């Protein structure tokens, strides 16, 4: 990776499609969402029915019993009936709610996990172009918007719709014409709401994106705290964070304005329905086309129709944020992963592995070349040293060799098998790369080594250190293998972190070991000791060592000299030295120090 590229390359797209499409895909993304959906809907219907029954019963009781002074006896039965309705509604609402919690929580946990899996499966170049904070937002904030919708508003939207349908049916029994009038006003509202999505959706998409940006900036502030303190640069970081937070607030306000606009316009329709019903109803009654009792019933039903409309509109507009979250989630699931697991079924042959490069080249998505096309055959069991000035493409070469980066052109073969056909698990067991800044988890040294080798016993782990000549260092630690390394390994020095990373790789006992400046921070004495140990341990194994210090080059079977994305020289140490080319120049610079002891 030698050239700076803008961070907008490789952004994960949102899934496209309308609300219904997204909802359908979202619900199908995990089988858990649809578990027992029929019963849930049925219970919802009962709850709605209970809600509609209550006012009717009350009306009856008032008309029949109370008004005519019938005393308690006259109302006891209607009240008992209504009581049943109230309790039934409550019980069913409870059941629906609990069921929705269950399916949404299990469904979203599954979605969260599959989004997490996909993000880890993204090609490295794409993964690195995403700030960590934004990746975290993908599996937290985005999904939480969906969960709060499914659990509260989704229920409200579903029940509102059911209530509107039920009320329409009852209303039609009283007066078909007035029902038509209600729908003549309601339909434009539904059309309007449907249209409004194209206007709301992008706003919420941007809103969620801004959440990711805030997390990205905050995550950098946390990670870079040392630098910030050292340079008293809190002003810079605060300004960045302020900008991100303000941009989020602006985007929130923008989305809010859009929502309020839609809701306000929608707010007018229920009022118009009520007024129109009253006006038309009075006319119908005045002309004797309708009984007064029927009008009273219709007006009453209108209230039952209008209030869910209001609630439904609110729920619908708020659903847009959930849809944005879902769009982003589906976008992650849609993003092309690293070599689809189905493609790689072949396992690598036993024994030492060779690596072949056939017309391999690599460029950034912007088209700027990092490595120009080259072909190369690395024979099994050979030790290869990669040298060259910083930024010459050495790291990219190392990452290509182990399939961490996919070549833009040509193909890489390991053990004669094209990399994209190799089963990933088999590949990772046999090939291990140690990068310059090996990541350590915030746990003990032993647990960090166990990351690649979960079954390793303390004795195995200790042996890995001893074999690398690091037994003394380990013994010098008061807590030995149980020494905590701190967040990101901060309790160890950079050199010590590299030692742990190296032991972790060595413990895995791979057929191919790739070291990318893996000992650059270690003191010379230890480095030489490690290198000697590695020479011994890697004999008969294929190894690729990228290093700007030429210790490893001397004993390598083959040295590859990189310059500006090209292999300019290759051969063993003595041969290259004799040529007096670029390697000889590098070597001169390396030994030309007066301090040779």
């Amino acid at each position, binding site marked *: 990776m030698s050239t700076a590229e803008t961070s907008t390359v490789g952004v994960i797209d949102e899934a496209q499609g309308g609300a219904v499409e997204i909802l359908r895909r979202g619900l199908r993304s995990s089988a858990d969402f649809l578990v027992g959906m029929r019963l849930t809907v049925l219970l919802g219907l009962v709850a709605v029915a209970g809600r509609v029954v209550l006012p009717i019963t009350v009306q009856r009781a008032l008309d029949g019993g109370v008004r005519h002074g019938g005393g308690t006896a006259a109302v006891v039965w209607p009240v008992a009936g*209504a009581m049943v309705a109230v309790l039934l*509604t409550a019980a069913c609402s409870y059941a629906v709610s609990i069921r929705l919690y269950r399916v949404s929580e299990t469904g979203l946990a599954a979605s969260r996990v599959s989004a997490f899996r996909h993000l880890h499966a993204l090609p490295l170049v794409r993964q690195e172009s995403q700030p960590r904070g934004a990746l975290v937002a993908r599996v937290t904030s985005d999904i939480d918007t969906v969960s709060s919708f499914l659990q509260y508003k989704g229920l409200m939207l579903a029940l509102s719709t059911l209530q509107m349908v039920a009320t329409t049916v009852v209303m039609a029994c009283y007066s078909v014409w007035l029902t038509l009038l209600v729908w003549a006003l309601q339909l434009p509202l539904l059309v309007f709401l449907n249209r409004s999505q194209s206007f709301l959706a992008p706003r919420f998409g941007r809103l969620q994106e801004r959440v990711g940006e805030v997390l990205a900036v905050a995550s950098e502030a946390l990670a870079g705290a040392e630098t910030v*303190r050292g340079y008293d640069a*809190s002003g810079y970081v605060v300004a960045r964070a302020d900008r991100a937070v303000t941009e989020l607030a602006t985007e929130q306000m923008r989305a809010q304005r859009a929502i309020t606009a839609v809701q306000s316009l929608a707010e007018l329709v229920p009022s118009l329905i009520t007024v129109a019903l009253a006006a038309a109803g009075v006319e119908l009654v005045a002309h004797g086309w309708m009984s007064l009792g029927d009008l009273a019933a219709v007006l009453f039903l209108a209230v039952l129709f209008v209030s869910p409309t209001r609630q439904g509109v609110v729920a619908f507009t708020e659903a847009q944020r959930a849809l944005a979250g879902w769009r982003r989630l589906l976008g992650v699931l849609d993003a092309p992963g690293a070599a689809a697991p189905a493609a790689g079924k072949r396992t690598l042959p036993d024994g030492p592995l060779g690596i072949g490069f056939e017309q391999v080249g690599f460029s950034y998505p912007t088209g*700027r070349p990092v490595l120009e096309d080259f072909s190369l055959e690395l*024979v099994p069991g050979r030790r290869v040293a990669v040298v060259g000035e910083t930024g010459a493409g050495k790291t990219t070469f190392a990452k290509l060799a182990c399939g*961490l980066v996919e070549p833009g052109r040509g193909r890489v073969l390991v053990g004669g098998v094209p990399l994209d056909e190799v089963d990933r698990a088999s590949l990772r067991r046999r090939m291990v790369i140690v990068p310059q800044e090996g*990541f350590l988890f915030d746990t003990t040294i032993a647990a960090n080594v166990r990351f690649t080798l979960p079954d390793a016993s303390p004795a195995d782990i200790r042996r890995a250190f001893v074999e690398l000549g690091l037994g003394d260092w380990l013994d010098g630690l*008061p807590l030995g293998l149980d020494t905590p390394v701190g967040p990101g390994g901060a309790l160890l020095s950079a050199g010590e972190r590299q030692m742990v990373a190296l032991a972790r790789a060595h413990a895995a006992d791979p057929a191919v070991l790739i070291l990318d400046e893996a000992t650059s921070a270690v003191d010379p004495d230890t480095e030489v000791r490690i290198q000697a140990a590695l020479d011994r341990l890697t004999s008969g194994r294929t190894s690729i060592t990228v290093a700007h210090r030429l210790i490893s080059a001397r004993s390598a079977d083959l040295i590859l000299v990189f310059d500006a994305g090209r292999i300019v020289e290759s051969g063993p140490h003595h041969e290259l030295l004799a040529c007096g080319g670029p390697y000889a120049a590098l070597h001169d610079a390396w030994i030309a120090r007066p301090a040779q002891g």
Partner: protein
Amino acid sequence: MTSEGVGDGWGARSRQGLLLLLGAVRAEPWPFVGALAGSAVYAGATVFTAWTLGGVTDRVVQPHGAGGRLTGPMLWLLAAAVVQMLAFTCREQLSALMRLRLECGLRRRLAERFAVGGAPAGRKPGDLLSVLSIDVETTWQAVRLLPSACSALLTLLVGITAMFLTDPVFGWMGVALLLLALCFSLVYEQKAGPLVARLQFLRGRVAAMAHESFEAALLVKASGREEAEVARFAGAATGLARAGMVAGRTRSVFDPVMEALPGLGILATLLLGAERVGGGREHPGAVVQVAFLIALLALPLMSVGWIIGEFPQNATAWARVSEVLSAPLEGTGPDAVPAEPQVQAGTAGAGTGPDGCAVVLDRVGLVRPGAAGAALSELSLSVAPGQWVAVAGASGSGKSTLTAVLSGLTAPTTGTVLVDGAAPHTWPPAERARRIAVVPQQPFLFRDTVRANLALGAEYPDAELWRALRLAQAAEFVAALPQGLDTLVGERGHSLSGGQRQRLALARALVRRPALLVLDDATSAVDARIEGEILAALDTLRPATTVVAAGSSPAALERADLVLLLERGALADQGPHHLLAQRSAAYQQLVSAYARDRERRDSAPVAVAGDRGRAA
């Protein structure tokens, strides 16, 4: 982790929730007043509509009621509809404004806390991100419901008064209903509080795990541990889902009960009313009126219920936020906060002079919290202005710790560090950063332009930036970047090579023209030729800059006036390179390692290069 800082007493969370709302009103009074007004007008328009409609239907009953006389009321109804819409807009927009401003303000405070002090001790970054996004949002969730809840409360008061006026018996029934709702809310709060607290805690844990796993993405990929990571994350996600279901079970009781209460109230009215009307103590109209009133009060009661239902979440979220805000800043113990600048007047004009800093360490010791041994012990030394001092030692011997103490980033546990006569960790941060620049071994670059990464918020003319880049041997590759100084480098500078990142970090230090330059193995990823050029360039900065360079690169040791040899945190020896190389076996062991290695390898039989690969 039940509910840090909230307290578990009855109503503690509701009290906290109310306090939050009060604070919100105090912080944003005008949007609140506006939203409240909108809410009141909205409620008024609703009542007006109901009343007018009632009038209209009543009039129809009169024989000569229908016809043209309806136009007037209809127009009134239309007007009410428009007023209602405007009031709605006002209420929604202003209450949203109030909430978003509060959210934004709280996010700013958190972000500033992160920027100034990093992560509070023991908190994982991902967990803090969860606080910043979800907990902040949750803290102010009830604000949005506040205006309608306030006007609902008013409606409830008016309604219950009206019930009292109709018949005190009904009035008391209304009060009983209200009290029942209140008691139920308190019970709910008591039950839901710990569940919600657990939920928020687990949410933080999921975020923390995701963050750490994405930080380790390269390692995960390289070692093929994706499925293990997914399994680990799935465990956390499932735990969160389970806690969500448990909390959801409690929440599922709350809303249906709050909805059922008014219905039960109406039914009680009917029974009571029928009995009283039957007994002749009440006329039927009053019962109808009260039943209608309760029906009217159902929504206000529910909206008050909704806001109370938010309290447990709000209080827990706020507890999490305020815990972060009140956490002590790292590296500034009680005695490390400078009361006033302690740069003494007599000490070389504090940076105005031409010479670099003088550094004196006297019996300095440092013990890291949680570490078993001392990182530094009994370390004494003296560096003259403009001197170049190298610090050598094995990995883990305390070189990095020494650089942190020298530069004032860490206060020593014992002994004193004096830079130009004053302890650097007590200097005002701005002063310290102006005089002392530290370049760490693993440079940290922001996802920003090269320019911003060098300046870090300060203003430098391009010429100054290029001068620093040239000194750091970074000018050439920066000039070759697509947009030069304005090229974005990826997060942590991932689009650059390790050596390039280190050179940018060095340039960042040099552009400040520090009087004391502290390098912590800052050229470890740079190849020999470039390292030589960098060292030569740094030499030209003296005597205006004192250089302390940790690291065992022979070229750097050779150039130093004085070499300090560290062993397990203590000073084993010091002196010029050639003297140390003669008298110290340990030093020889360290610095001649590469040369010895070369000799060893050269004397070994040369491996026959059989098939050595072919490059095309």
